[in-house]
């Protein structure tokens, strides 16, 4: 039987969830035996395969128009979608920005910051994504598995990957359900 394929990508977050994934250490060899790793931020394929992958994993919150595109593309190209980490599960620290007006946040960073020179304005080139109100992944697309934690512990991530690799839907409870 062909190995299940996995793609991952990051939305607005801090890459801490990816670091926690790497903290499975030597067990990465085991994961590479069980699944075929396709597009991820640390491999050079840029997107999930057009004909789909078995598992899609997204970290980070939906924070701009590019995040929205990436989230929808992953959803449409994977069978099981995992929201990994607090940012993806409920918006996390990123969602703290929703307490402020987006324009005020942009102005603070690009116009008012003490170190800015006099000519500053908010970047708006069409090359750039537009920020949007921060949402959890599940508010943007349908999520099949939520894995909370900031970041989730490496052991929890390894458990989730092992279950998915064997075609099971991971159930977090007891030791594997952690909020830290």
């Amino acid at each position, binding site marked *: 039987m062909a190995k299940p394929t996995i793609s991952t990508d*990051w*939305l*607005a*977050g*801090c*890459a*801490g*969830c*990816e*670091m*926690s994934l*790497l*903290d499975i*250490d*030597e067990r*990465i*060899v085991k994961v590479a035996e069980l699944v075929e790793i396709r*597009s*991820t*931020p*640390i*491999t*050079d*394929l*840029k997107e999930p*395969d057009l004909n789909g992958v078995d598992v899609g994993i997204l970290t980070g919150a939906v*924070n*701009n128009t*590019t*995040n929205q595109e990436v989230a929808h593309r992953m959803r449409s190209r994977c069978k099981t979608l995992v929201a990994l980490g607090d940012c993806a599960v409920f918006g*996390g620290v990123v969602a*703290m*920005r929703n307490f*402020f007006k987006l324009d005020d*946040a*942009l102005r*603070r*960073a*690009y116009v008012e*910051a*003490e*170190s*800015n*020179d006099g*000519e*500053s*304005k*908010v*970047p*708006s*080139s069409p*090359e*750039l*994504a537009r*920020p949007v109100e921060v949402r959890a992944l599940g508010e943007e697309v349908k999520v099949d598995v939520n894995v909370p934690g*900031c*970041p989730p*512990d*490496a052991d929890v991530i390894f458990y989730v990957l092992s279950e998915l690799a064997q075609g099971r839907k991971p159930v977090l409870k007891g030791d594997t359900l952690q909020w*830290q």
Partner: protein
Amino acid sequence: MGTKKITIEPVTRIEGHAKVTIHLKEDGDVERAYLHINEFRGFEKFCEGRMYFELPSIMPRICGICPVSHHLASAKTCDQLVGAEPPRPASLLRELMHMGQIVQSHGMHFFELAGPDLLLGFDANPATRNVVGLIQANPALALKAVALRKFGQEIIKTLGGRKVHPSFAVPGGVNKALRPAERDGILAGLKDAMLTTRLGIDLIKDWTTRNRQDVERFAVFPSGYFGLTTPQGSLELYQGECRLVDRQGNLLEQFPASRYLDYIAEHVEDWSYLKFPYYKKMGFPQGAYRVGPLGRLNVADQIDTPEAHAEFKIFKGLNGGRPVEHTLYYHYARLIETLFALERIEILLNDPDILSTDIVNTKKTMQREAVGVIEAPRGTLFHHYRINENGQVEKVNLIVSTGHNNWAMNMAVDSVARTYISGQRVHEGLLNRVEAAVRAYDPCLSCSTHALGQMPILIDIVDSSGTTVETLRRD
């Protein structure tokens, strides 16, 4: 044929979201290439109104690769806000944690992110040009690399309870002392970590010798250099004075971090969410400089630990005594620093104060404003807070490591695109070289886009009317 634009998106094997656009002239030669950092999160704004002591927990969420740098820069700023200098053992323990992070971050970058280009080749199949491909090609080496990163992460966990987003530093000190068994546990892993770092140094020296031509034409350009040093001018990663040298290596400025606004300003370009810091007196872009491993070794006069200093002397000779301008030597500089961090870990663990329980100063004389600084793996990191009479944050200003290298990364992308690409001749391996130019700086785009941000790479080909005629992605 009209002019074209090539887009690489996302740039992979870097941290965060970026894209590169390469604009081509009618004849297919490169007109200009840009690195766009494509995300903004807004930490400066949403920290307003929080209590100052929450910031050492919130700020690390800027970046999960160097959370310790943000945690410590934030705590150092808070030390000053409460007016409590940490006792010596607390400073030693904080530095120990920071060295653990340097080892894990630098080690991961060399072997797991840049390694596939260097060890498998820029033109290797993109489907396997990654850490899994490395595990298949050389499992023994890959496992050593995993163990090196783990060694650094375990130090962080030993002190702060977890590997990512630890909780350890508090205003005025740290919240946990080191136990003898924990110290011995770290010491036991030191030898293997040294051997793996040495192996990396042999690999990069061998690679740069065999690829001399590439090294000499791959994004080599002059700039200023910036980093912390000890008062005697030695390499310093935890605390020191800011030093800025010009392209010839002449000292331009030496100043305490608290005065950063007198020397550094930031420029904004419409096409990137990442700002461009520069030396104020020279203006932008003349005053642009580089930070991180290459910048730090270029500003330092010596290294105070023997093994790293021996390599440092070789490094200093690479460009005839002038600052080293070669982007690809970032990798060598990064490993010399890893060696230094490991030597520091040994010195710190053997310090008689390291097991002391005098770890926090609880005295308080509140101040309203403070600046904290640290050398994060990718460069100098400034945190600047102002609080009100209730201890609530009024203003936050941040200059993050990768930001200082924004101009340089753009120069590197432009330079590599000009050297290797013409419209008649674009293939995946060449585009990968453009990405490798970004990768050498080990950018941390999460850090960079704390304001709002993300960074992948994509190549669009646009005609002279601005219409995209082709988009190259590697899938």
